[in-house]
């Protein structure tokens, strides 16, 4: 008798709003909203916005989404993370567990730790387990060691120009992959170079100003912390070409922590690593791997889920940690 009464109560709680979400689903949504925060920097102060607000008016999600991962450093095996394969696998599991499956993945570089073929192989293998089968790469400085990026290009450079830059379109959004980790000068920062900048200018010249643009490159395209090489010396020129576009998103890696900045129509965002964290600017002697207690490691590694809703001004960027 008591069971019948309980059933009636549960039934009454089901889908009261006729929006396809029952009580359990509602609680799941609320838990997700708690972990999924969109962080923006407003006047240098981080401001969080509830995830739901950025998902589109009807809450059903945008036209497509993709996930950015970065800095897998396959081959790294020091105390900061003795098992980078395991944490990359956790990242893939996390991707596969997303409520909305991404259409593709973006890897913003430092795929390998020492540019060794077996290291690239391992990353490719692990990523094969992701639901999204298309992965777009740009190299990090650890991917172009000793051979000036020759083996990186052989592996990931199909259809790319020069040192591996390229562009592609997805559902009306234009993606530009840039390489800023080659020909680095002593005392300098990341570098795009004249040939690549020329290509980029031509590549986006004829696009409508309303076309949303996503630029991705390894080293940040804004001066996060020049003292540690966290910036690109000729990015101002690239950003100049992007000025006329209404929605520009710049996705970078390299610094192994999330950071976001909004400047006019441009949203800059850096992703966490799937391998090891690094200190905040100036908070340590050097930008190397930051050792933390083992149980904390996964809370400092993560993925970035990006949602595009047609008609919305900016892409919704949500970082989530691996643990």
């Amino acid at each position: 008798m008591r069971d019948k009464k309980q059933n009636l109560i549960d039934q009454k709680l089901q889908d009261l709003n006729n929006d396809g979400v029952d009580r359990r689903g509602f609680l799941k949504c609320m838990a997700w909203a708690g972990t999924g925060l969109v962080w923006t920097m407003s006047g240098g102060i981080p401001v969080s916005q509830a995830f739901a607000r950025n998902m589109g008016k009807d809450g059903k999600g945008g036209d497509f989404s993709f996930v950015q991962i970065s800095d897998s450093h396959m081959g790294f095996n020091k105390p900061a993370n003795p098992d980078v394969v395991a944490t990359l696998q956790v990242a893939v599991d996390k991707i596969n567990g997303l409520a909305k499956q991404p259409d593709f993945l973006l890897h913003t570089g430092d795929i390998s730790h020492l540019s060794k073929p077996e290291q690239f192989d391992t990353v490719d293998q692990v990523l094969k387990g992701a639901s999204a089968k298309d992965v777009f790469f740009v190299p990090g400085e650890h991917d172009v060691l000793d051979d000036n990026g020759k083996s990186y290009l052989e592996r990931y450079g199909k259809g790319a120009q020069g040192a591996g830059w390229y562009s592609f379109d997805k559902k009306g959004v234009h993606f530009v992959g840039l390489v800023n980790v080659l020909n680095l000068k002593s005392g300098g920062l990341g570098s795009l170079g004249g040939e690549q900048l020329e290509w980029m200018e031509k590549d986006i010249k004829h696009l409508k100003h309303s076309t949303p643009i996503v630029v991705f490159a390894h080293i940040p395209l804004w001066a996060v912390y020049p003292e540690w090489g966290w910036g690109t010396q000729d990015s101002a020129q690239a950003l100049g070409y992007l000025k006329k576009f209404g929605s520009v998103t710049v996705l970078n890696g390299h610094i192994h922590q999330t950071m976001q900045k909004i400047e006019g129509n441009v949203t800059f965002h850096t992703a966490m690593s799937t391998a090891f964290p690094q200190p905040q600017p100036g908070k340590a002697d050097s930008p190397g791997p930051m050792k933390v207690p083992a149980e904390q490691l996964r809370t400092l590694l993560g993925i970035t889920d990006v949602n595009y809703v047609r008609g919305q001004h900016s892409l919704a960027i949500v970082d989530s940690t691996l643990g």
Partner: protein
Amino acid sequence: MTRKSVWFAGVAMAVMIAMLFVGSPSVKASINANDQPSGANAEVKIDNFSFTPQTLTVAAGTTVTWTNRDDIPHTVVSTDGVFRSKVRDTDEKFSYTFAKAGTYPYYCSVHPKMTGKIVVQ
């Protein structure tokens, strides 16, 4: 002046001059901690994204050995194309013998903010 007083003045002057030299810091400064005898091995340590010592002065003919003690790989690359190491992971070394006198600035091509200099005399 008497001969005796002239003699005393001379001795006093000599003693004073000698004392000046003994106490002089400029004499000590030329014995630099970074100087190495010719032909010997000189060491540069790579750690915490820096080369230590940042400037190393050696005699021509010296072999300089860089050892990476950092937990991140680095390279040793001459800015003038004189030498270039392959990537060096933790505990790996790179050596170069400097036959000619001159100044050899170098950096890590992976982390270009890391710079150093070998001065060969």
